[in-house]
């Protein structure tokens, strides 16, 4: 594994995903067990007053989580929090990004705090995220 820059302010190269599809939502819903039809059934979404089904927030939260663990290690994550902001929709091109916010020592471990975001092609914020990792060796 190459050395990871843990300087405060260091950023990971953003991940620009392919346009969101309802297939993405269905695949995540099958994996997670949340089968709310608002995310895949067009007529159900229309009856609820939405132009189309909209994205499952926890799907993008999961992508943001794995974006962070691909960076700092699956075994090392100790905390991950997301805040849901504006909705995401089929066709959206989402960009996942992260930066080192702090490095600190606590309980005999070196911890790394990161700030994360998932933004829409409009510039709008879909998710904000915060994570803490044990510093990778």
């Amino acid at each position, binding site marked *: 594994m190459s050395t990871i820059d843990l300087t405060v302010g260091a950023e990971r190269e953003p991940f620009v995903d392919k346009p969101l599809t309802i297939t993405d939502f269905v695949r995540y819903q099958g994996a997670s067990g949340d089968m709310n039809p608002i995310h895949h059934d067009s007529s159900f979404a229309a009856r609820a007053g939405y132009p189309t089904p909209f994205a499952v927030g*926890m*799907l993008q939260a999961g*992508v943001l989580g794995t974006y962070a663990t*691909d960076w700092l290690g699956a075994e090392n994550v100790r905390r*991950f*929090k997301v805040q*849901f902001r504006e909705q995401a929709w089929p066709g959206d091109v989402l960009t996942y990004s992260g930066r080192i916010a702090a490095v600190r020592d606590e309980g005999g471990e070196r911890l790394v705090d990161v700030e994360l975001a998932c933004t829409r092609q409009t510039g709008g914020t879909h998710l904000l995220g915060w994570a803490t990792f044990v510093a990778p060796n």
Partner: protein
Amino acid sequence: MDTSLEGRTGEPFTMVVEAGKIREFARATKSQNDAYDGGPHGAPISPTTFLMSSAFWQGPESSPLAGVKLNWERILHGEQEFRFIGAPPRAGDVLTGQSRIDKVFEKAGKRGGTMTFVEQVTDFHNATGELVAELRSTMIETSKATTEG
């Protein structure tokens, strides 16, 4: 929803962490991480948000809100937090989960009305009884229908 819900608990449930489910979840969340595939490095580790799939192991009695009438069209998922004591669970782990309503509080909405925040915590213990993970879901009930969520 109101503060009378604080302290309500659901029934405990058992969850087996499975390699195939981890792989399915990792694919669905577009991971590039070998740790979720297992192989020579040992049992696959679970992705950060994997414990959301504990839904498959829960029945209606597992929810601390069982029997409470809710206006789902006014409820948003505001925040979701995962905390791990040590590395996240691995395939083969057998966990016992239990959910509770930790906090209920109100705030004035920016565009009028009142928002009620409900924080539900689910603790996961391993087979030897150690706390290994804690999930915290913040749900927001608005006093009028919303188009965000």
